[in-house]
C-alpha cells in the first residue's frame, strides 16, 4: 500500500478527479496549501508598498492505494493536472504500513479501497 500526496494547481482539481474516477480511484482527501516551488512568485501591492509573494495557492491531494493502483493513480493525476507550465505540481509517494476503516474495523488492503 502507498500513500500518494499530490500538489496541484487549484483549478485542475476537477480534471484530476475526473481522471482518477475514470481509473476507478474514487477515494481521496483534499486540503488547501501554500506552496513554493520552481514557479516564481508575484508581487502584491498594499497601500503603496510592495510585497513579494512566493507562497502560492495550491491543492494537496492525499490518496491511499493498494500496489496495483499506484502507477494508475500517478498517471491519472498527471493527466489531469499537467498543462505543461511551471507550477503544475508534484507527486510524492510514501509507504503505507496499515490502513483501518473506522466503521468496520477492517484493516490492510481491504480497508483502503
Amino acid at each position, binding site marked *: 500500500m502507498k500513500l500518494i500526496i499530490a500538489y496541484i*494547481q*487549484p*483549478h485542475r*482539481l*476537477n480534471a484530476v478527479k475526473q481522471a482518477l474516477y475514470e481509473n476507478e480511484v474514487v477515494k481521496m482527501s483534499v486540503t*488547501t496549501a501554500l506552496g513554493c516551488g520552481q514557479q516564481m512568485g*508575484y508581487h*502584491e*501591492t498594499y497601500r503603496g508598498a510592495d510585497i513579494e509573494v512566493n507562497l502560492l495557492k495550491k*491543492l494537496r491531494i492525499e490518496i491511499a492505494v493498494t500496489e496495483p493502483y499506484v502507477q494508475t493513480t500517478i498517471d491519472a493525476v498527471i493527466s489531469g493536472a499537467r498543462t505543461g507550465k511551471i507550477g503544475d505540481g508534484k507527486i510524492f509517494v510514501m509507504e503505507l504500513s496499515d490502513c483501518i476503516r473506522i466503521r468496520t474495523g477492517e484493516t490492510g488492503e481491504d480497508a483502503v479501497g
Partner: protein
Amino acid sequence: MKHLLFMAILLVGLPQVHAAELTLEDVNLRTNNTWMLVATFMVFIMHLGFATLETGLTRSKNTVNILFKNSGVLAIGLMTYAICGFNLMYPDFTDSTNKFFDFAGWGIAPPEGYDPLTYANGNYTYWTDFLFQAMFAATCATIVSGAVAERVKLGSFLIFSAIFVGFFYPWLGSWKWGGGWLEDKGFHDFAGSTLVHSVGGWAALAGVIMVGPRIGKYVNGAVKPIMGHNLPLAAIGVFLLWFGWYGFNGGSVLSAEADTVSRVFVTTSLSAAAGVLSAIAVSWIHSRKPDLTMALNGSLAGLVGVTAGADVVSVMDAVVIGLVSGVIVVFGVSFFDKLKLDDPVGALSVHLLCGVWGTIAVGIFSPETVSVGIQLLGAVAYAVVSFLSALLIFAVLKHTIGIRVSEEEELGGLDIGEHGMEAYNGFQIFITQ
C-alpha cells in the same frame, strides 16, 4: 456658539432667512428639500448595496476587483454627471421642437436669476435636483458591473461606464424625464423601471454577450453553478438596496407631499415583500429547496417591478406586481443560463426582465391613465438604443484594448491579476473554481 457663527458666515452671499421674515414658502422649501436630500443619501447607500451584493455572489478571488469597480463607478458617475450628464438629461426641451436630443452646456450652475424659493415650485433647490439625479445615474452603470463580473477587464469597464453613464444614460433619460418625445407621448415611468433598471439591464445584456461566460460555467452543454463566496455580504447588499429604495422611489415624488410619498412607501414595501414570498414559493417548489439567493433576488425583483408605477398603482396591484416579479426572477435566472448568458448576480433577471415587466404593468393596472401600447413603445425604444449603444462601446473596446482578462488571470483571480491584492488576507480558501 456654532450656530451663531455659521449664521454670520451665511450672511455673506448665500440666500437665507431671518427669523423675523420667516415665510411659509421658505419653510415649505426646507421641508421638501430636506426630504429630497434624505432621499439622495438613501440612493447613495444603494451603491454600497450593489457593491456588497455583487461581492457576495461572486468568488472570493475577485472581491478586490469588484469593490474597486463599484467605488470607481460611483466616482465616475457623479463626476460625469456634473460635467455633462445633468445638462444632457434635462436640456429643457420645452422651447425646442427637437425632442430627441439636446444639450444645455458643460458643468453645473444654477440657472440665471435662480431663486431657491421658486425653482421647481419650492420643492427642492437646484443643487438637490442635480445631486439626486446624479446618484441615479451612477446606479445604472453599477447594474452592468454585476453582470460582467469576474472576467471583465478593469480599465475597459471603467471606460465603458464613463461613456455610458456620461452620455447614453442621460441622453436616454431626456426622452422621458427631460421632457422629450416619450414624455409627450404619455409614457409613464415613475422612478425608473425602464429609465434606470432596464436601460442598465439591456446594457448588461450587451456586456454579457460580448464578454462571454466565465470559464467553467458551461461545460459540455451543462450549467455548472459558480457559487458566491459570502452570502451574509449578499444579504447585507439586498437589505441595503431595499433600504435605499425608499429614497429611490420616495424621492422620485420630487417633493415631500405627504400622501403620495407615503403611498409610494407602502406600494414599494408590499411589492418587495410579495416578491420575496413568491420567489421563495416558486424556488421551493421548483428546486425542492428554499433558496436564499432567490429569496434575496425576489425582493429586488419586486422593487424593480413596482418602480415604474409606485405612484399610481393600488396597494393590491403592487402586491400582484411583486408576486409576478418574484416568479419572473426565478425562471429568468434559469432562462438566461439556458441561453448560456452568464450573469453572476442575476442582473438580467432582476433589472432587465422585471424592469420591462414593471413598465408594462403600469399600463395593465392603470389603463385609464397609462396606455399599454405607449408603455411597450417606450420599453422597446429604450431596449433597442440601450442595447445597441452598449454593444457598440463594448465592441470597440474589445477590438482595441480588449474587454476580457487572460485565462490565467481569470483562473488565479482578478484580485491578484489586476490589483496585486487579496481581499481576505490569511484566510485559507479553496480557489478550485
